[in-house]
């Protein structure tokens, strides 16, 4: 079975632009979470979606938004990019919600110039 897939793998943007990152969960998984990982730090929770509804939101500005589609894939959108948004963006899926193993994709490396 395919694992969590994310696209694109790398992205270079300039300040002020917007970006859309995509994630396909493991087949049968209904929960998708997004994390931001800055070099040398642990992943920081951004959003969690379950059954197409936002169930959790981390301490990120409104420039960050996400959605989940009927096939459980998900998009993370970031507007008005700042230099500080440069990071590895990880998507994780789990079968159900609540205290479940998180299965991570390889991430999207976003660089802001």
């Amino acid at each position, binding site marked *: 079975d395919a694992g*969590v897939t994310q696209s694109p793998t790398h992205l270079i943007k300039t300040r002020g632009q917007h970006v859309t990152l995509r994630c396909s969960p493991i087949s049968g998984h209904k*929960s998708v*979470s997004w*994390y931001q990982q800055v070099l*040398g*730090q*642990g*992943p*920081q*929770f951004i959003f*969690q979606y*379950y059954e197409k509804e936002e*169930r*959790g939101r*981390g301490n990120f500005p409104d420039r960050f938004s996400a959605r989940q589609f009927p096939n459980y894939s998900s998009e993370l959108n970031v507007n008005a990019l700042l230099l500080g948004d440069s990071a590895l963006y*990880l998507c*994780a899926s*789990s079968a159900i*919600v*609540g*205290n*479940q*193993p*998180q*299965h*991570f*994709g*390889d*991430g999207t490396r976003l660089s802001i110039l």
Partner: protein
Amino acid sequence: QQPVQSPQAVILREGEDAVINCSSSKALYSVHWYRQKHGEAPVFLMILLKGGEQKGHDKISASFNEKKQQSSLYLTASQLSYSGTYFCGTEIDKTSYDKVIFGPGTSLSVIP
């Protein structure tokens, strides 16, 4: 509130043992442990639930003291493949909807 991990970094020779600690200022329902190798995604190792027992597989095990809000990861007879950064992740209740809060990580290097 981000959990605290100690030590920040550790270097081991093959065959040596290590303990990585994770503590939180909040009451916890579960603790996750993940390992991330350089340039790769974090990989799930194990999850410990409130009221659960110590878990382990192969030579890696973990404990969870819910009264002290602490968890420890034990690596015995370390192998080169154990190298990487270990993260603990915490959930504060049963319905936290996978809002896993990760610690800053512990870098583990195993040398021959």
